[in-house]
């Protein structure tokens, strides 16, 4: 049983990518099968129920709940404007007079004779769903959405911040180990996805955002910089909803970590092309990785990679735990028996020759296979 517990992230130039685009509630699908779409085209739309406002009519009119229905000026389903009277109480020829008004525009949804409360639902909130990638509609998912397909390059990161974005890839770093600092960010990078090297500074991210860049892809980031960017300490790797003005994709991890050569070369080869990216990450069961998709027509259909990859002597691996974090190497042996490591734990190990020529013994849980 020679398995990599962390199968590694997909980095490939040629793969068929299918994206399910689903509305939060059923609605209208606006495209048909076979139709070519671009990333920003709206493919489906719906309306979410509006916000609900509660009006304590019984309190406003100083009556019991059961009296409220007969004092209503509006019935369930009636539209109302903001500050429009919805119920009125008059007694003794108008000497006692009270009015209850709607706090917002909307529709009367419910009149409760028990609580004397009236629910006013605000106008529906329109939701439009874009295609996200340049591709072709291959399936309609009833009244809930579509499946879009394209051929292209796919790069998965380890952690992302922010949601979907789309823009032109711009290579900023000259090599994977170059730091990305504020000086590297050009003023005319509006709408671009900037590709950096080993470590991005907070100033660089702020400059990129101010200049209108839609995304940044980089090898590493310091934990403190990430916290500063999102305005809180990131405690669990469930992301995608942050609103920080751009989408950030970290390919390797925390600290100064050169972007994997293969990832860098892939992005370099497609510089100037349009890319779709999404920072949404969920490192839990049912893992979701941040992604960069670069549709291009020459892609051939490639089957998805195996979920659990096999470790072999000669496999290229990356070490993913201190004190060797980030070191690349090649497996030289896969001993079957459990072995005691410095902590006195008995674990299954691999022997790895690092690219610098060091012979290392590493728990199998602490390596990541680099897909060739």
């Amino acid at each position: 049983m020679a398995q990599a517990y962390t199968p590694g992230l997909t980095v490939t130039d040629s793969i068929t990518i299918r994206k399910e685009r689903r509305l939060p509630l059923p609605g209208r699908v606006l495209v048909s099968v076979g139709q070519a779409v671009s990333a920003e085209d709206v493919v489906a739309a719906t309306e979410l129920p509006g916000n609900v406002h509660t009006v304590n009519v019984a309190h406003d009119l100083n009556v019991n709940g059961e009296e409220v229905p007969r004092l209503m000026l509006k019935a369930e389903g009636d539209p109302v404007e903001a500050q429009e009277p919805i119920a009125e109480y008059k007694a003794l020829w108008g000497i006692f007079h009270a009015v209850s008004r709607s706090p917002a525009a909307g529709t009367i949804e419910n009149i409760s004779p028990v609580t004397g409360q009236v629910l006013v639902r605000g106008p529906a909130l329109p939701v439009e769903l874009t295609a996200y990638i340049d591709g072709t509609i291959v399936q309609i998912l009833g009244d809930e959405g579509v499946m879009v397909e394209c051929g292209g390059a796919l790069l998965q990161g380890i952690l992302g911040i922010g949601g979907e974005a789309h823009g032109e890839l711009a290579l900023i770093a000259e090599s994977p180990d170059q730091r990305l600092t504020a000086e590297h960010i050009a003023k005319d990078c509006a709408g671009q996805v900037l590709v950096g090297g080993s470590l991005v500074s907070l100033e660089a991210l702020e400059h990129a955002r101010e200049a209108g860049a839609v995304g940044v892809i980089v090898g590493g980031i310091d934990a403190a910089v990430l916290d500063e960017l999102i305005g809180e300490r990131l405690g669990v790797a469930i992301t995608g909803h942050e609103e920080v003005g751009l989408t950030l994709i970290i390919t390797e991890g925390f600290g100064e970590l050169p972007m994997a050569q293969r990832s860098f070369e892939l992005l370099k080869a497609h510089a100037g092309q349009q890319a779709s990216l999404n920072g949404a990450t969920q490192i839990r069961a049912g893992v979701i990785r941040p992604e960069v998709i670069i549709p291009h027509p020459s892609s051939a259909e490639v089957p998805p990679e195996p979920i659990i990859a096999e470790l072999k002597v000669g496999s290229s691996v990356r070490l993913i735990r201190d004190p060797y974090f980030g070191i690349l190497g090649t497996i030289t042996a896969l001993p079957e028996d459990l072995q005691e490591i410095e902590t006195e734990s008995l674990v299954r190990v691999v022997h790895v020759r690092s690219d610098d020529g060091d012979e290392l013994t590493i728990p199998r849980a602490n390596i990541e296979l680099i897909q060739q």
Partner: protein
Amino acid sequence: MNLEDIGVILATDCGSTTTKAILIVREGDAYRLQVRGEAPTTVEAPFEDVTIGVRNAIAEVEELSGRRLVDPDGRLIRPATETKGADVYVSTSSAGGGLQVAVVGLVRRMTAESAQRAALGAGAIVMDALALDDGRLAHQRIERLRQLRPDMILISGGVDGGEERRVVEMAELVAAAKPRARLGAKFKLPVIYAGNVAARPRIQEALGEATALTTVDNLRPTLEQENLGPARTEIQEEFLQHVMSQAPGYSELMAWVDADIMPTPAAVGEIIQRIARDEGINIVGVDIGGATTDVFSVFDGTFNRTVSANLGMSYSIANVVAASGLDNVLRWLEREIDASKLDNRIRNKMIRPTTVPQWLEGLKLEQAIAREALRLAFAQHKLLATGLKGIQQERDIAQAFDQTRAGEETLVDMMSLDLLVGSGGALSHAPRRVQAAMMLIDAFQPEGTTRLAVDSIFMMPQLGVLAQVHPEAARQVFLRDCLVRLGTCIAPVGQSRAGSPCISLTFADTGERLDVAAGELMRVGLTEDTVREVIIDPIRRYDIGAGRGRAIRTQIEGGAAGLIIDTRGRPLQLPEDPAQRRETAVAWAQAVDLYPDS
């Protein structure tokens, strides 16, 4: 099948990442764990069928035991023969994130808290508790319910014959939110109503159409009484009927089992309650996982469970540090570490959660974080394990009116705690058992004399569900194969200057006497299955269980870590000065032989 005919038992636990199978075989009159197998859980895409993972875990059990359990058509072989099959198959599940419940009540510290206890006791994760006094506006509550997408909603509120209008108001809010079930988008969301019985017709009117509504007895029938049983049973029933049947592959798994599938934490709660009942003891159990930490307690027969979402050792490790503060983690370490490097290191564990510490410093750091995760989870538990003591145990009306003060009084009494059981990777797989013992002692700070144990391979869930079918087999395996006895902790309560006299301990059989000064840790070798009678005599400032300065005569059990005498004081005080604190940490580690370099 008669209980005496059951010779081979297969049990699985479908966790969110791993499915674990155990095989229990009767040897003579005794039931023993024979082998254990595991495989990745397959609820999520691309498999989307939990039974694949179950079959794979069983296949590993077959391989290791040499016993064939599944026939070529993929069916379980039953009953057992000499070489193949099992007589009973049971399972628990927390796959797909477990059972997620939103609770709705009237007053946060009363009905909403009772509802929360009911849901937690049923093995659920409580996503949020909405109440009239939760500080939110009506539309915010509606928005929240809409975002949550729980598996079910539990509504409580009002004593029987009491407040009706406001309970209906909360139900109307639930209806207005039009909440959708997490699994099975086309199905109505199960809603359980366990409030004022007089409001039932109105609740039916408000929610009958929009949701799959069921009603059960009020969980707070009077101000002085809590009746959590019916709500808990209904939650588990709904879990099976609605939630599980929507999860991929579960309808097939439900057809395989000989007892209802239980939510994993409910099964753990079951076994802990049984042991407390059978042995007549107070227990605290903790399961520290990668994402969450569960704490269970039974004090004077009252069971409580809490789950601290986002306190865990891999997925949530960075959150533990965020919640406790970096300084609280650093205080357990023997060496100074650069804070920014440490921060990056912890985050890298968060994003690559399956990695293991390779060097000793890494292990020490993880164990320091584990102490904080356990400490915070236990603090949360103490806050919730409060107030009413469940059905049949009433308070008088004056106490009930004094809700705030009474509600803050925890039921957890560390001095009366008999057994502290830990499980989860950080505790069960600690390379030295004394490390697990010290993590438990530092985080929970047991008082008086307390037995310590760890669950060897975390099979409490399977034993909990097995206890429904064969309580004796579950009990035997729990005591013989599941629990690893670590030993006993003796910790007097009190404070005085380090080095001043604290307690003396005399072994009754040999007369051997140990004098231990304040501020020390001492470890005495006492092997498993050894029970010795001791007289523990504290000085006037300290209490060992009988009151300040009073001696006790008691029996203490040995274990893998032996007897640990902890005179560091309660509450535990660490030196303020960082350099002195590190020096002390080194001395304490040496005193108990904590690490290879100690």
